[in-house]
């Protein structure tokens, strides 16, 4: 693949003795939406959390193998730099409850001690909220607490918070699983808008969501990467038996 942004080589992930991921090899193309799907416990979320090294936070968790962001080995990069380049949006909206909407969006800068002028801050906040299609809904209430927003709005606030750091890649861990269908749709539309500037990796349980939004799909099963291909090809003509069984609803 010519324009790959992330290259995963022989990645293994463990919780204590239990092997969660075994020998994952994958190249992720730039400015595309990549869906990771598979039944519960297949390791897709662990894989996602390996990419920004959140996996290692859990006591007893470790990894083997390499992941390269462009040419840099992420296990040799400064952790703080890595996480600024790879943003993440979580399953449940998690805005900082002590902060206003404005402070939430700019929190990546303030918490990291990066000083900005008032004007710069306002620009970043407006720009990020616009990109997260939340600006028109909250522009008059920027100084209210983020937790007063609806679930879908909170999730878009969290997306804006990631966008503000201008990452290369944004990881989404089932971002719509706690939202109603209308809010989910908005997030999906948003993903399609975002892909011209960012590479998006999204974990989803929802096959339709994967089919609708993603350009590439990776199918995980029991900690192994069974198949990775263009979404259209993977859904219309799966190469592996397990993939076919899964997308036709025979298990999972």
């Amino acid at each position, binding site marked *: 693949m010519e324009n790959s942004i992330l290259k995963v080589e022989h990645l293994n992930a463990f919780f204590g003795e239990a092997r969660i991921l075994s020998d994952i090899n994958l190249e992720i193309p730039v400015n595309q939406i990549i869906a990771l799907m598979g039944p519960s416990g297949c390791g897709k979320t662990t894989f996602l959390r390996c990419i*920004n090294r*959140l996996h290692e*936070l859990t*006591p007893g968790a470790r990894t083997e193998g390499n992941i390269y962001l462009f040419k840099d080995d992420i296990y040799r990069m400064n*952790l*703080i*730099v*890595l*996480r*600024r380049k790879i*943003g*993440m949006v*979580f*399953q*449940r909206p*998690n*805005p*900082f*409850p*002590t902060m206003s909407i404005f402070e939430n969006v700019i*929190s*990546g800068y303030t*918490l*990291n*001690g990066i000083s900005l002028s008032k004007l710069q801050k306002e620009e970043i906040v407006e720009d990020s909220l616009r990109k997260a299609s939340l600006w028109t809904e909250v522009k008059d209430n920027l100084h209210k*607490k983020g*937790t007063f927003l609806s679930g879908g709005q909170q999730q878009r606030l*969290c997306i804006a*918070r*990631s966008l503000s*750091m201008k990452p290369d890649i944004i990881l989404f861990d089932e971002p719509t699983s706690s939202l109603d269908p209308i809010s989910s749709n908005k997030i999906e539309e948003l993903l399609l808008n975002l892909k011209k500037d960012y590479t998006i990796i999204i974990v989803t349980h929802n096959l339709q969501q994967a089919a609708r939004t993603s350009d590439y799909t990776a199918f995980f099963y029991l900690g192994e990467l069974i198949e990775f291909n263009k979404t259209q090809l993977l859904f219309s003509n799966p190469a592996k038996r397990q993939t076919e069984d899964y997308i036709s609803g025979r298990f999972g």
Partner: protein
Amino acid sequence: MDKLIKIRFYKDRLFKGGIILLTVLSTVPLLLILFYIIKQGISSINWDFFINLPKPVGEKGGGIVNALIGSGIIVSCASLMAIPFGALVGLYLSEYKRDKLAYWVGLSVDVLQGIPSIVLGIIIYLWVVKPTGHFSSLSGSIALAIMMLPPIVKSTEETLKLIPGTIKEASLALGVPYYKTILRVILPMGLSGILSGSLLSISRVAGETAPLLFTAFGNPFINTNILKPMSSLPLLIFNYAGSAYEDWHKLAWGASFVLIMMILFLNIVTKILERRWKIQF
């Protein structure tokens, strides 16, 4: 059939009535105490009571200014020692709950809570008063600080444990270093809990006499030097209520009234702060 249902209905009523009755009964002692102390103490309260020293036996009037200042200083020093310390221990216990050390620290804090205050007083006497050679308010503050630790540690730990892990992860995923995540995201979220635990522990030790008997000792004059003996409200009450003079009894009642009002006030402030600073996740 109808009759059976009726009996059940009455049983329900009886049960509910019983619970309410017992609940009301449990507040009766408090109300009686408050009523009695107000009745006995209110007559001593006037402006002079707050700005004068106690008078010698035989003279009417006199105040408790030495004890008020002393209590303020002793409890403030104790808080300065116990609150930061206790909050950090609580933080450790909630952040590293799986560690063996955390288990043992948690256990020791529980045991510490059970140590009688008089024992703490004697121990601080042996460890601080004896080596330095004299009673001091500082030694009293140390004894009180040790008493304050367990509730502060516990309330901090419990508050911080309730914060969802994904909030911490959200901060780490933004590239915020761990220590800044703790200081600027996690601790501010736990502030109301830490503060209410601290205020409650202050109101609890403000009335302690036993740990101060062998440490701060008491002082009939105003003293602001923490290395010298100092009076406090409970010490003054203890000494004057045990005396044989009617005037001193009156002073002790007045001091009790002031002490109880202060504790009541602290408790109410705590409740208000808890409600106002409550954080929704």
